[in-house]
């Protein structure tokens, strides 16, 4: 009985969670029609873009046994930089590329410090959380950076209620999720990430260049965070150095709800994306039910705890 339950949970755990929260909000008469409408689904998917792209990068990092606390600051910094460049007349694509590059650079610094100074990623990225936020405020001169119209503003729009098309951000997130999943499951790089997270000493013994690998993982994840920054900018339509405070916690929560272990060595992209969706659905549904903000926060907190508890259960008590 219990082993069967464990197997079912193992295969479908996050899916069941997602189904449960959807059902939760689909039951009440007054919200059902709107909650399940195509337009609302579009809104939920669009609202998930920023966290889920961040969660892709975070999945790499957490599977490798590390953590990154500087996501929110990186998103603010890269958003501000992109806004400043657009202000100076750069095109949307070029500004986005620059933001991704800056995100990658921040990740490169994080990874290099972790690898070469041999310090815990928690500490390094906690430092970067402050540095990145400070840099963003400095560059933006401690105020929001506005610019005239730019195509970047259209990448996350859900404004047209009749429109069928999903915004570009959703497609980008989807494509990246598929790519990251393949990267993690089907390539030598992916296996090395799992090996590093499972047992760093064993990975080193087997000839995995662990230091270099850490740098690459953090830099790649940084690019994802930079892209999240681009979409954050696209949603706000101005560069705000104080945006996305605490975003890293949402991103980490998505990965953990998705079944990854903070000890490293386990985790899936699909799980992380579903984790991000669960949180978006909860937020969106709570709003429609007219529940106050604090209520949403409590529910999401509980979901994280229940998700990890169920995950431990299915692994037979081992975290």
């Amino acid at each position, binding site marked *: 009985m219990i082993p069967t339950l464990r197997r079912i949970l193992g295969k479908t755990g996050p899916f069941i969670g997602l189904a449960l929260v959807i059902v939760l909000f689909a039951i009440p008469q007054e919200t059902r029609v709107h909650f399940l409408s195509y337009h609302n689904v579009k809104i939920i998917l669009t609202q998930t873009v920023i966290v889920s792209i961040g969660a892709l990068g975070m999945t790499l990092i957490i599977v490798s046994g590390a953590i990154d606390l500087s996501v929110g600051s990186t998103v603010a910094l890269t958003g501000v930089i992109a806004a400043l460049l657009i202000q100076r007349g750069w095109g949307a694509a070029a500004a986005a590329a620059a933001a991704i590059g800056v995100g990658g650079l921040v990740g490169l610094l994080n990874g290099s410090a972790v690898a070469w100074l041999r310090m815990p990623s928690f500490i390094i990225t906690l430092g970067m959380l402050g540095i990145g936020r400070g840099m963003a405020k400095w560059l933006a001169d401690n105020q929001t950076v506005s610019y005239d119209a730019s195509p970047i503003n259209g990448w996350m729009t859900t404004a047209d209620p009749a429109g069928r098309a999903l915004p570009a951000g959703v497609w980008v997130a989807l494509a990246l999720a598929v790519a990251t999943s393949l990267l993690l499951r089907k*390539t030598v790089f992916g296996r090395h990430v799992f090996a590093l997270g499972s047992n760093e000493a*064993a990975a080193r*013994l087997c*000839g995995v260049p662990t230091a270099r690998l850490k740098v690459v993982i953090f830099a790649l994840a940084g690019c994802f965070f930079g892209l999240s920054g681009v979409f954050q900018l696209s949603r706000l339509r101005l560069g705000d150095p104080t945006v996305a405070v605490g975003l890293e916690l949402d991103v980490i929560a998505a990965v953990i709800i998705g079944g990854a272990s903070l000890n490293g060595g386990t985790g899936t992209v699909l799980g992380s994306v579903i984790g991000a969706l669960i949180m978006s659905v909860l937020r969106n549904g709570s709003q429609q039910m007219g529940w106050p903000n604090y209520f949403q926060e409590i529910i999401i907190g509980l979901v994280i705890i229940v998700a990890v508890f169920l995950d431990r259960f299915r692994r037979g008590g081992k975290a």
Partner: protein
Amino acid sequence: MNVPARLRLERISKAFGATQALRSVSLAVAAGEVHALIGENGAGKSTLLKILSGAHEADAGAMELEGRPYRPSGPLDARRRGVAMIYQEVSLAPHLSVRENILLGLESSTLGWIDEQESRRRAGDALAALGYGHFPLERPAGEFSIAEQQVIEIARALLTQPRILIMDEPTSSLTQSDTEKLFEVIGRLRAQGVSIIYVSHFLEECRRACDRYTVLKDGEAVGAGEMRDAGMDRLIALMTGRPVADLYHRTPRRLGSVVLEARALACPPRLKAASLRVREGEILGLAGLVGAGRTDLVRTIFGLDAAAGGEVAVFGRLAGRGTPHRRWNEGVGFLSENRKEEGLMLNQSVQDNITLTKLEAFGRLGWIRDSRQAAAARRWTGELAVKCRDVGQAVGELSGGNQQRIAFARLLEHRARILLLDEPTRGIDVGSKAEIYEIIGSLAAAGKSVVLVSSYLPELLGLCDTIGVMRRGELVAVRPRGEWSEHELLRAAVGDE
């Protein structure tokens, strides 16, 4: 069986689902007796220990402790009734002091406040009973060696005045000299009337430390008796169910040219300046005390530790600054003495563990073809008779012997031509040992070269062509196997010329 026994087990049986773990096992232990419980992995030792310590309940049978029925409701109850257990892995809180560790859970206190003086007295007494009264009580336990930590654990067990002390593989992580000290401790406990159940793979130790023995095989007690009447061969035959024709499989070898050479290799603090040469098809054994630098030597050759001086030549080419990555590419493989912490990735699959060193071979441009990887892994799990569900199973779920086969399979899959093996048979059952000896023998016969670090002298003498002894960071004597005896190896290791 009319001796007045302190502990008596009558026809204990236990099943887990369809698996019959214990079948009508009977056992009697007298006061002050050291009783060896011997058996291969999976023979039922752990189940029996768990029943004794109250972690499991027997399905059938009865237990008696000092003439009264003994049916512990749990580990705590067992401890209260005088049955204490020392586990294989030391489990101290490294940041707490020796005293705090010994008294953990049994603190002397008034209204929640620790009574310092009383605590010190009790902890000190427990250590003194083991002959370690001089231990500094206030130092953090983590600063002590593994052997000393084990003494602290035993002292902790003594606090409840146990009548029966169960020791599960107590020497698996001890050096030879620490093992000697443990035997002294056991002697003291025996003199104080404590009965000990001693579980170990190391038959030599059991023969030295124990008065009587019981051998388990496939959940049944297949033999029991006085240790002094039992020869090694008889014990092994009971355990494995087959006579010991030849545990050390000697294969025909032809030594070729020198393939691996280290010159004055240094890696402080332990490795001073060691030089060695290994030829094609040769098994070179490295003997020596723990801390003499044997592990450091092979690790430095492999590039796991950075060399501070000296050089390494692989296949005649000066290999420069080594990294494990580079060594694998040169055809050198390494098997760690520390299977769980360094050798394997326990929560990853059998297949990934076997193939991690050359994943690139299973596809192109960094992609991996899962089917090819699985096929490669399956070949070795079949060839080495690894007991696992499938190659996707996590290595951590396998028994010690099977884990070690996986670690070996990695070297075989990589087709390493020079194998550095650090304590390859540590902590595994006799059956797996015999198979690993066979693998090593056939590798050498096929022209591979092996450097074998072992603390188990019969193993070195049985397998190697050449044996070198390390002492204080240097390789002091290298001679053909025929010129060594256990006695001489020991003498060279301690430096008694």
